[in-house]
């Protein structure tokens, strides 16, 4: 097995999850209504839980333990797409980002459930139920905000226009992708992109919205990030780095 390619794939998965989980947790106490505050925070916990499992798979392959991987790496070592590191913005932006992210994750997890690396296939099957709910939640918000008022529609359209080029960065490929596909670790990114768009388009169109015709914004999978990731990691890693030897 090409272990380097497997690890690169696992770092993408884990880093996407831990960073978007942290970003979405910023809504805790600030959600638009109490019920949504609780729902969004709970989903953020789900994402961080998934990250922990992906990091555990890396640990089994000889990497540091999950806490070290999440809290003791520099931004350049992270392989998350830039989409997940952008500030939470207004509610429309967080809804648009989460919807796009969950659509892609739905497609990706279905593909990963057939991965040739069994521990990864098992993890993907385990996450399917939670992910089904996340996507249901996202679809509902898109449908509602898209058709509630002219203001909500305009805000959501602006959010989709901003988020979509970054969302396409979720499919960014590196030198590792040839091996990822050849080893049967995951279906090719181009296929996942095609399937994801087929899932996203009818929902966006059905809500009276459009997707911009814009080029993908990439870099994250190669460790090139926005300044927002540095700020996020400073915040997320502060407590751990204060005393890395502490036991919890």
């Amino acid at each position, binding site marked *: 097995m090409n272990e380097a390619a497997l690890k690169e794939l696992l770092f993408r998965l884990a880093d996407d999850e831990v960073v978007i989980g942290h970003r979405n947790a910023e809504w805790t106490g600030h959600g638009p209504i109490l*019920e949504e505050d609780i729902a969004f925070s709970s*989903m953020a916990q789900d994402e961080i839980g998934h990250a922990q499992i992906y990091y555990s798979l890396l640990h089994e392959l000889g990497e540091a333990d999950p806490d070290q991987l999440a809290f003791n790496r520099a931004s350049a070592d992270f392989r998350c797409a830039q989409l997940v590191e952008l500030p939470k913005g207004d509610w429309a932006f967080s809804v648009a980002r989460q919807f796009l992210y969950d659509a892609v994750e739905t497609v990706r997890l279905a593909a990963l459930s057939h991965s040739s690396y069994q521990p990864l296939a098992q993890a993907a099957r385990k996450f399917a139920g939670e992910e089904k709910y996340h996507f249901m939640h996202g679809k*509902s918000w898109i449908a509602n905000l898209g058709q509630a008022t002219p203001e909500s529609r305009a805000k959501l359209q602006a959010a989709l226009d901003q988020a979509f080029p970054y969302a396409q960065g979720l499919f960014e490929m590196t030198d590792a992708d040839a091996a990822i596909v050849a080893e049967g670790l995951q279906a090719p990114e181009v296929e996942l992109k095609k399937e994801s768009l087929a899932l996203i388009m009818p929902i966006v169109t059905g809500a009276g919205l459009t997707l911009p015709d814009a080029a993908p914004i990439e870099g994250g999978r190669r460790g090139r990030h926005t300044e927002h990731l540095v700020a996020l990691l400073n915040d997320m890693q502060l407590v751990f780095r204060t005393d890395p030897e502490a036991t919890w």
Partner: protein
Amino acid sequence: MPDTQWEVYEVFHQKARGEQHVHVGSVHAPNPEMALVLAKEQYARRMACVNLWVVKASDIHASEYADQDMFAHATDKSYREAYGYKVVKKVRDKETRELKELREPEDE
């Protein structure tokens, strides 16, 4: 000012298939679909759950608390309840006897 508050939906939770749905609380939501989405995280994130119902609170027809006295019993109606029957003692005695026999089979 427009009313920006969403409607209230009552939430009913089912622990296992075949069991009754139990009222567990309510959520605010703009429509039934969203009510189900929000109810899931409020009421099924800890307890086991196989199914949720949401019902618009305004669709529920309730009696008036002013009429609460109609539920009171003017005379003893314990005969309507299982514990009101003398047979209860007989059943208990029989159960105790059977239990004793189960525990001490050598006495037979």
